[in-house]
């Protein structure tokens, strides 16, 4: 519990930092509070919704990864490596290119459909495969969908900046609309994750023992699958594909609070939010007015950790 509070405090500090610094002048915390209370100005209109969106995106990706790793019993599983995110991204990009005006409110649903389709293909192709081959299947699918996304963007994208958001995962220009999109899905991810946690915990012991313990796998598995795909889809619809959050955050969370999902889910949500917010803030602050997409920073930091997980060899469950 103490760790959770510490993390919450850290998140609050980083939120304040991210509100204070930006492309324009840096503000004191007092000025930040004043602007938020006034409900106007740079902080309220741009920085606050962007920071909130970053936290929610990170939370969704991280919980999606946590649930996916528990469901597949595969410590390397994550929505981005398995291609679920790029499936959602592809559907969103197509929708934005086809009907930019009409798509607004339905964008998460579109992403959800795309993500579910890719998820279904992986489920079908990866049955009975070893943990690592399962991931390779996802990587190949992800490479394929990513090639289509790049093709579409290079050919039709209205602007390079727009294209970059989808290819590298960025929170550039995200506002209150996006926070409203994300909020219900993020709540669904947290609440849903904690509700099913007790049922999902025995999965780690294998399907036989879980069944013996009275878990109905035929009900539980689709629920977890839905939870994971939905939260990843919500995040990708807003921020594009931000990789490695869903992969490494659950590992860090398990280190902090052990394998019990009732704790891992909220911990990884919090850590994921913290991670993406830090990445986004760093990307804005390093070289203003230029921005480094949060997805790039996450990959830059996440890839070595993934390598460490591989080398350490604890990944062969």
């Amino acid at each position, binding site marked *: 519990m103490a760790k959770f509070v510490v993390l919450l405090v850290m998140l609050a500090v980083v939120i304040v930092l991210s509100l204070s610094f930006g492309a324009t002048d840096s503000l004191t915390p007092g000025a930040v509070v004043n602007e938020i209370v006034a409900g106007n100005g740079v902080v309220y209109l741009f920085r606050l919704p962007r920071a909130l969106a970053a936290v929610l995106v990170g939370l969704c990706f991280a919980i999606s990864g946590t649930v996916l790793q528990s469901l597949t019993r595969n410590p*390397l599983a994550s929505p981005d490596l398995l291609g679920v995110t790029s499936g959602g991204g592809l559907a969103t990009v197509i929708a934005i290119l086809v009907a930019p005006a009409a798509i607004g409110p339905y964008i998460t649903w579109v992403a959800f459909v795309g993500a579910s389709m890719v998820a279904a293909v992986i489920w079908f*192709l990866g049955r009975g*495969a*070893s943990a*690592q*081959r399962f*991931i*390779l*299947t996802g*990587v*190949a*699918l992800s*490479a*394929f969908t*990513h*090639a*289509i996304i*790049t*093709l579409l*963007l*290079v*050919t039709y994208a209205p602007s*390079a*900046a727009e*294209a*970059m958001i989808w*290819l*590298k995962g960025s929170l550039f220009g995200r506002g209150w609309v996006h926070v409203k999109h994300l909020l219900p899905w993020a709540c669904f991810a947290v609440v849903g994750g904690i509700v099913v946690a007790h049922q999902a915990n025995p999965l780690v012991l294998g399907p036989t023992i879980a069944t013996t313990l009275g878990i109905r796998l035929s009900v539980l598995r689709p629920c977890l699958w839905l939870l994971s795909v939905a939260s990843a889809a919500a995040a990708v619809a807003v921020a594009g594909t931000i*990789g*490695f959050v869903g992969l490494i955050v659950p590992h860090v969370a398990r280190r902090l609070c052990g394998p019990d999902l009732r704790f891992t889910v909220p911990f990884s949500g919090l850590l994921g939010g913290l991670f993406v917010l830090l990445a986004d803030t760093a990307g804005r602050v*390093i*070289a203003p007015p*230029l*921005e*480094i*997409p949060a*997805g*790039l*920073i996450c*990959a*830059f930091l*996440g*890839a*070595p950790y*993934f*390598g460490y997980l*591989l*080398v350490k*060899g604890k990944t062969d469950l």
Partner: protein
Amino acid sequence: MRPVAGFWPSVFSTVLLIALGGYLSLSLGPTSADPAYTLYQIRLPRFVTAVLVGAALGLAGSLLQLATRNPLSEPELLGVNQSAVFAVVLLLLVLGERAHPLAMLSVALLGGAVTGTAILLMSASGAFPRERLILAGLTMAFFFGSASSGLLLLNETDLFELLHWTAGKLSGANWLDAGLVGGCLVVAVIVSVARATQWNALLLGDDTARGLGIDPVNRRVEIVSLAVLLCAVSVAVAGPIGFVGIIVPHLANAMAGLDYRRRTPLLLLMGGALVALSDLLARTVLHPAEIPVGILTALVGAPYFLYRAQKL
């Protein structure tokens, strides 16, 4: 594995395919005021570069698979291409303007060598069976990929140009590019002719190779160095073009068997045909827009990789 098509029929049909691609590449395209210039300075060098880059990548893929004893190895998936790209991006940022192709090649070699060494160490340690090696390679690919995109973004390079280059492109290839790839290929071909029988012995496993008087460790270092050279030159000229190194070797194996004396020419030809035809498609399908050729090879190659990974 029994060859399905025989050596000479495969060679003959691939040469025909390249010739057909060459004819179409040279004849298709917008009309210009100076046909001779268009033909000899734009279309022909581009076609020749495409064939040579494809040949280099096809051979490089097969060499990496031989050195790592892993049928899924491929320059793009193991991160060799991305680390070479990262080095080139660093050079371009330091020099500001377009650097001399030879300088680009040298730094691409350095960058590729980093990943090459890592691959050698990992496959020598024995702790990295098939899937694990690819995942470790992917990690390097992600790391260097994000690093070079970040560097480019920080320096306000024209985004669309960059998007094209990092997806692999051949537009604007000139005779110097073709010469550079050609030179490296000559080196690679000479070495592979000289070493073909030793490489064949390596296919039988390290112990057998040792029994035949061949040092597998030295050979492996040599093979990976050669692969890195080929990847580096194709990156310096055309950016990273993925998945050629996985499609071509498997096709060549199926058609000509595993003997490197026969496999090498077929690898070169089939790689050349694949990239030349992909590039032809890339610049004609959506004309006047041009698709980066790396995207086309990924669209074909990713499903093929999926299929291979299933059959493993």
